[in-house]
């Protein structure tokens, strides 16, 4: 593992037009926001203000933001449990995201979901899911609905290298290829399923080739490069939208932290981590922006200060938000409940 990424194996992709300067700055700002948000979440977890599992996407910002920036704002997206960045990239209020991590009533899901289960339907972000691979067929169903209603959206599902080995992935690739559904499969290959390296878990570690076996055009991209990601996903979305057929992109990235906050990250060699961090997606993109004259160093300072304030405000908001009233414990189990029992009940009328 941990070889340097190869130059885009698979079909030759013509990157879409580069984003304009405003969008380049927005992309950079969003990447900075995710980085700083994740660092703050880590700190709040250590303080005991965030419970459960906390999976950080530090190092994967280019994969996340490059992908989301290539889509329309109302293309439905599903993700894994490592999905704070997807929500933020879709424009969810950082206050509501942080409050959800804190388990407060002002959270994106009213404190019912937590870090692993963010959703923002108003932004067509259809959720983070905790069972590896389990969310992929949901996006397939959204693609089915798009086809059923003859809409021009594309459904997008982001999942990891670990999910590639789940049976439901084979089922989903097959149905997408069989029925020509407008779906984009994004394999966010951060090279480890928890502590198991891809080449210790996958007979074929070019994971995009799984999709090719079902007749789905697929390729791999260096996902430490946000513009490369954006170009590849733009092309995949174009195929799904214009041709109405599936496409797949393997995003080769690297997560800097352990699998979750409870993982001391002893499996991966320090030298390997250092090599990948030397290609940090924020630093790389910053150099591009400076080199192209799209930002000045003053701009960068201002963006960082803005992001710092947004994250500080989000954490303050979350901390000051009320807890969820215990009387709401059973609210929302059903869209049409039969009972107002605050503890829930299978009994009619209790």
């Amino acid at each position, binding site marked *: 593992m941990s070889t340097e990424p190869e130059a885009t194996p698979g079909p030759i992709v013509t990157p879409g037009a580069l984003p304009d300067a405003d969008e380049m700055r927005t992309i950079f700002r969003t990447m900075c926001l995710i980085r700083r948000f994740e660092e703050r979440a880590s700190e709040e977890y250590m303080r005991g203000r965030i419970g459960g599992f906390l999976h950080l996407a530090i190092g994967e910002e280019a994969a996340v933001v490059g992908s989301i920036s290539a889509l329309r704002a109302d293309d439905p997206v599903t993700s894994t449990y490592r999905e704070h960045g997807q929500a933020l990239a879709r424009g969810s209020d950082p206050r509501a995201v942080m409050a959800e991590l804190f388990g407060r009533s002002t959270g994106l899901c009213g404190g019912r979901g937590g870090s692993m289960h963010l959703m923002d339907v108003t932004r067509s972000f259809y*959720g983070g899911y905790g069972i590896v691979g389990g969310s992929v067929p949901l996006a*397939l169903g959204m693609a089915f*609905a798009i086809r059923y209603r003859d809409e021009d959206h594309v459904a997008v599902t982001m999942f990891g290298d670990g999910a590639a080995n789940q049976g439901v992935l084979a089922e989903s690739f097959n149905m997408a290829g069989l029925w020509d559904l407008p779906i984009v499969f994004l394999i966010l290959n951060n090279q480890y399923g928890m502590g198991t390296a891809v080449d210790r878990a996958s007979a074929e570690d070019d994971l995009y080739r799984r999709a090719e076996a079902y007749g789905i055009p697929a390729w791999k991209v260096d996902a430490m490069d946000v513009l490369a990601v954006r170009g590849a996903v733009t092309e995949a979305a174009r195929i799904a939208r214009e041709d109405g057929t599936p496409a797949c992109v393997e995003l080769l990235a690297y997560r800097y932290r352990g699998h979750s906050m409870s993982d001391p990250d002893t499996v991966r060699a320090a030298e390997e981590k250092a090599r990948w961090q030397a290609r940090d997606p924020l630093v790389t993109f910053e150099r591009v922006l400076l080199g192209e004259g799209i930002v000045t160093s003053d701009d960068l300072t201002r963006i960082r200060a803005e992001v710092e304030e947004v994250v500080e405000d989000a954490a303050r908001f979350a901390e000051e938000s009320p807890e969820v009233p215990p009387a709401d414990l059973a609210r929302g189990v059903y*869209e*049409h409940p039969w009972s107002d029992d605050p503890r829930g009940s299978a009994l009619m009328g209790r």
Partner: protein
Amino acid sequence: MTTGDGPRPVTYREALTQALREEMQRDPDVFVMGEDIGRFDGAFKVTRGLLDEFGERRVVDTPISEAGFTGLGVGAAMAGLRPVVEIMTVNFAILAMDQIVNNAAKIHYMFGGQAPVPIVLRMPGGAGHQLGAQHSHSLDAWFTHIPGLKVACPSTPHDAKGLLKTAIRDDDPVIFLENEGLYAKKGPVGGPDDLVPFGHAAVRRTGTHCTVIAHSRMVWVALAAADLLAAQGVEIEVIDPRTFRPLDLDTLATSVRRTSHAVVVDEGWPECGIAAGVSAHLYDACFDWLDAPIGRINSADVPMPYARNLEQAALPQPDDIVRAVLSTLGREVPR
């Protein structure tokens, strides 16, 4: 028995077909999906004729991928469609339990009510056809265990139609448990707008001596037992809960308070099963009225055997109910 307004008796199978056809005619967002449900008309022929009427867009033959197409249905429901997914038998739903339990049942609550999941998962179960251990499950208790699901299990053509229509119009995920032994059962059915609401038990036979609670095919076994008992001067009241999420405990408890005796019949296994759960509710609600412990009748606690005599020995029979009723009444139980 519950009666309907239908002009002629139809089979349980045809009642289901009518419900599907009428709901597909009523609502263009309703579609059906499953293995061999289109050109093959369905393994049990419930979807016969739907492909000709509605076309391949709304009648979708799937690969043998239970987890995949169940999850696809959940996603389509989140997007606002109303999928009716046929899982060929409940035995194959075991392959889709992640999608059913982790996704269908959880999504509404876990995401703060942002995405309703109006899906119906139809699946027949039950034993009695010498299909062996892997094709004979009654897993009603598994689904009833899960908050977020609604669970319906019709015993008559009337309820098959009316409950399925209610399920399709409901905005929550519904597990719709049919029984392979009931598809040929005939009876009256309601019209296009006759719905059977969830959470309302049906009294299948009135009686004063003992309340027998049974659902799905076991209703008919209980009614056969009622005839045998009537010949001995014992009148049982047979009550069919019809849905277990929600459960109409009031109707069950009202009857038990009157008869002071109860037997619960369930084709599933005994441990932590439907009979155990319903009995516990009845003890909570009726303890002071009971004159004897509640009887429980289940399938034997074994994987279902193939041999016909063993399979019949494993399944609840009318005689088992007769003995349990006589026992709870303190009467002599024939050997």
